């Protein structure tokens, strides 16, 4: 039996984690297992005051359980890749590991009043998106699809928390892992 592991760093909002876990399990039709992750201070870049997502993915591959079909990490820390100012998430395209950051998904980050519902919606859209990449899906031209590129929260809010028919079909066609 293979599982989709969802790992969280210690500071992660538990309610958000549960929402992500349940939604991923329902959308991909796999059994999800939770896993506690330790702090990711090793990925911290003092100059940028952000966490390098590539280093996190490398760590995930090192601790990945043998029965994991995919491994999604959730963190509150703000992530980046060297060439970009930030990323909401990062995945190995067609690989095993993915990570999402909740840091920029809250309304408070943009100086707005908190909105729990909007935040949770964004969190599992990002989770679907990054796990979708690990299944080999690339960005979708359908702006309402979970696989559409989201470079700001407006674009994330414009997406559905589900895959379009074309991406869903591509997922169904994927080889059994």
């Amino acid at each position, binding site marked *: 039996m293979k599982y989709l592991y969802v790992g969280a760093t210690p500071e992660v909002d538990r309610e958000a984690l549960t929402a992500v876990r349940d939604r991923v399990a329902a959308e991909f039709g796999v059994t999800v297992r939770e896993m506690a992750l330790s702090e990711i201070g090793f990925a911290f870049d003092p100059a940028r005051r952000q966490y390098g997502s590539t280093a996190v993915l490398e760590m995930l591959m090192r601790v990945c359980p043998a029965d994991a079909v995919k491994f999604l990490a959730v963190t509150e820390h703000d992530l980046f890749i*060297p060439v970009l100012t930030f990323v909401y998430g990062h995945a190995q395209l067609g690989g095993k590991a993915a990570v999402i950051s909740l840091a920029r998904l809250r309304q408070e980050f943009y100086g707005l009043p908190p909105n729990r519902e909007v935040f949770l919606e964004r969190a599992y859209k990002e989770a679907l998106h990054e796990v979708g*990449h690990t299944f080999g899906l690339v960005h979708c031209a359908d702006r309402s699809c979970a696989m559409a590129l989201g470079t700001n929260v407006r674009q994330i809010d414009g997406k559905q928390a589900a895959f379009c028919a074309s991406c869903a079909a591509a997922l169904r066609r994927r080889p059994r892992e």
Partner: protein
Amino acid sequence: MKSHWQILVVDDEEVMCESLAAWLREDGYLVDTAASGRGAVEKARSRDYAIYFVDLKMPGGMDGIETMMQIRRLHPDASIIIITAYATVDTAITAMKEGAQEYIVKPCNPEEISLLVSRIIKVKNLQRENSILRKKLTRQYSVHDVVSKNPKMQDILRLAQEIASLRSTVLIQGESGTGKEMVARAIHFSGDRAQGPFIAVSCAALAETLLESELFGHEKGAFTGATGQKRGKFEMADGGTLFLDEIGDISAKLQVDLLRVLQDRSFYRVGGSQEVRVDVRVIAASHVNLQQAVAAGKFRDDLFYRLNVIEVRIPPLRDRREDIPLLVRHFIEKLSPELGKEIQGISEGALRVLMDYNWPGNVRELENAVERAMVSCRSKNLADTDFSFLVPDGDSPRRVSFPAGMSLAEMEKVLIAATLERTGGNIKESASVLGIDRSTIYEKIRKYEIPRP
């Protein structure tokens, strides 16, 4: 489809290179990477990428600007984005002056890169669509490489299709360079004989005795130098089509011989006694008006009527100027791979020059002009300056005068020498301008001992 487009990311910092490549791959692009300017130029040599992301500061003697310049030498219209962590106004100005499409500072906002890439790809998609539509348009007006939307030419092409499978003789008349052989080929390749041979003979290029042997073949010992039996063009064309170009130039004796073959479908090799039977369709062509030649007693009327079963008259290019843009695009597409050039089109100004010119050498002259312009062209579009060698009528760079008392032969010599000078010694073009065959011009150059410029 994004995956049609390939992107090259060039950065000596592996982590930068790979992170941008991975991010673009998630967007569905095929992404290649290079760790140095030299590596990038090597990759660009074998493939033109849709977009090049090039880091400004790279060690090894080739920085981003130098890399960009070398890539642009290989692909003048390459979309190059310079990326740098050390932005200054000076470097930005230099990059843009040297042809960078954009200049971005890393780390950059994901939205910025995303918009930039999608904007460039949108333009590339439009360019590709435009090129496909142009090709479709050319195909719509093309039958076996004869390109025209002129109503008279369309009628000819329709007729060519209708008569393609008949064995009836066809006489194609038209000025030099109008494409008589192309129409003959269109007839041949549209019909039942398409699998058979298409043999073309220029009657003007050979002396009478040589032409006789060329057409009918000869037996061993038929004449001095006939060391073995040789099959003639009629035999070679058995089951196919024999195209006799410049039929108006054949001698009276050959006219009789040809008439006999057309009547009996059989002939004797030179010096032979055995009758040879062939199944050949004859298509003849002439740039001189054969009817007038018959009236002047220079061409046998019985042969004319035998040849003129189906008559095709090709209009000169000056009477179908609407074909010029179509033909130019056709020649650009045809010649680009031959010349190793990536010319995509022609400017409005250049097209005006071509539309205003009189084209005495017709389509052949136009093709030569396009080829000459493509050779000297330094951009992706032919400009009016690329056709500066086309001198409008009455504006010749060198006036040729023929004083009274000059013989016809002397006039011919002077005229050929002046034409060669005007075309820079280009035989094909000179022949086209003078309205004669290449073989004829060679013969006259030898005869008059005209020095080549």
